[in-house]
């Protein structure tokens, strides 16, 4: 073949694995060629466990000068189950980064309202940390985080330190509490009455399970946010990441190419986008 295969992954070594919950682990990866991934917040990579397969995973760390990056993976399918069985020092394959990213430059000077449902915190963490590293570039930062139960909460220590920051407003909730839980109980939209925003300068950036969007978007609209002030990132089966294999199609849109990050105004009338 005269030109390289777009399916050929680079190799990366697992440097460290941190158990987040019973279902999720955080993997710190180092590309074997020492080159930084070059991603922007919101992009994803295709992760290979050789002999098992490949699947799309969003990058959870903010871009930086170092080559190391992080992915947080829920044990859900063949590849992710295999990943959970690996240990530090094991080598996996990485292709990418792929897809659109959060409009981190366009949102400079704006107020940011992050809405993270469950695993949605994983790609948002990349943007949140990116913004915190450039704190002066952004206005208010509000982070809403919802999990099913207290035990399902990801990045517990990190989020606790976010909550202590004076330059960030952090609100969290769980769908179902337990004996130890003193915080808010209810779906993520129950956090919305707890703060006010200036809708003209605020942008909501939402990532969560499919069911979350309808309600979270309605809540954001009720706060006066225009549709083009709502940014979402959508999950689909992005098998090839190249806009060929057809699995991630949402009507005419290939989520791996035009997404996963979309401006809500651009897709609100698209059949199949949000159910």
């Amino acid at each position, binding site marked *: *073949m005269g030109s390289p295969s777009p*399916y*050929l992954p680079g190799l990366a070594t697992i440097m460290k694995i941190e158990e987040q919950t019973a279902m999720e682990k955080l993997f710190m990866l180092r590309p074997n060629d020492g080159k930084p991934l070059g991603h922007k917040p919101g992009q994803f990579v295709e992760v290979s466990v*050789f002999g098992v*397969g490949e*699947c799309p995973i969003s990058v959870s760390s903010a871009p930086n000068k170092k080559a190391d990056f992080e992915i947080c993976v829920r044990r859900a399918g063949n590849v992710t189950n295999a990943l959970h069985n690996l240990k530090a020092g094991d080598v996996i394959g990485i292709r990418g980064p792929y897809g659109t990213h959060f409009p981190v430059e366009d949102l400079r000077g704006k107020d940011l309202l992050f809405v993270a449902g469950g695993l949605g915190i994983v790609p948002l963490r990349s943007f949140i940390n990116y913004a915190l590293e450039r704190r002066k570039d952004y206005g208010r930062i509000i982070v809403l985080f919802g999990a099913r139960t207290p035990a399902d909460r990801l990045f517990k220590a990190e989020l606790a330190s976010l909550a202590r920051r004076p330059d960030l407003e952090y609100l969290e909730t769980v769908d179902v509490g337990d004996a130890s839980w003193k915080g808010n109980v209810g779906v993520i939209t129950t956090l919305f009455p707890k703060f006010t925003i200036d809708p003209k300068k605020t942008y909501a950036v939402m990532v969560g399970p499919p069911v979350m969007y309808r309600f979270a978007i309605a809540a954001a609209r009720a706060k006066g946010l225009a549709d083009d002030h709502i940014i979402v990132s959508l999950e689909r089966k992005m098998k090839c990441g190249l806009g060929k294999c057809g699995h*991630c199609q*949402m009507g005419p849109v290939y989520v791996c190419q035009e997404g996963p990050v979309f401006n809500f105004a651009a897709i609100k009338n698209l*059949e199949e986008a949000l159910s």
Partner: protein
Amino acid sequence: MNLAIIEKEGLRLFLAELLRRKNTVVGVKDQSAVSSIPGDSGFYTYAPINSPEEMTLSFDVTLIPPKKYLLPAYEQLLTFNLSPGSIKADAPKEELIVFGVHPYDIIAINQMDKVFSAVPQDNHYLERRKRTTIIGIDPVKAAPRAFWSSMGADTVAGGFDLMLTDIGQCYVTEVGSKKGASLLKMAPGAREAAPAEAKERDKVRAEARKRCDANRLNFSYLELPSLLDGKEEHVIWEEKSYLCFSCGTCNLVCPTCYCFDVRDDVSIDLKKGSRYRTWDGCLLSDFAQVAGGGNFRGHRADRYRHRFYRKGQFIYRRFGDIACVGCGRCSAQCPSDIADPVAVFNRLKEGI
């Protein structure tokens, strides 16, 4: 010589010469003898050819389109060691001559060329395409469910190396590429076509078109993208898909369906593995299902509708092509006969 004449015997000798020179040639074989359908008049498949006698050029349509040679049903992309360290891409190496491809199938291949050469390019496909020679043949028959004449797919301007038209005693042969021009030199007795012979070709094509017109869209196929606008909630999707087995046959036999899955295989000693792609179909129930069980097109009617939108609108919006060429394979092979684009699109046009 852009328009040549090859005599019937000349074509036989041409094919024999290609085989003698150890070219791998696939052509259409009449498999009626092995068909289990009583009274089946034609059952054609593309298969490797060892002698000119094995091949027919007077078929109506093949069971599976020639896409199987450009996007093989099982295509190895990578090989690797399970204890990683070595991983490499597999490049297609074989050269292939596909002998006898109808214009509608060439149009479908031209569409795949666009899809796979769109950035990011799929070099596996492009390399295979480069190594494939296409010798077209104008149809003289139309399959009972074919409707290519109303899909603008009765003739094709490019995408072939040679294009043959059977005008009775001989084949009018159009040269479509440099490769085609040099191939033509191997055809004994090939000569420049006379104006009358070129006219005869038009006549043969017009007659074939007429035969195919028995089954047709009642409107211009170019209206399809706008016709589908706002029809997402039409009753036809639920109604027709009620009989859908989600078997994916319509995808499998479609020359413009190219969706694929990517999977890994492991050798029996658990030391080496390979990554391959294999055909997938949007009508299969788990096509849009993600790990964890969420299915973004879990409803049968939504999958059924997706296919028609893809054919009539989505690919058009992306690449400018209507992704149905009217071959009629889906209509003929759907177990419950609900896949026919003519029936669906004509009904949407009638507005009932």
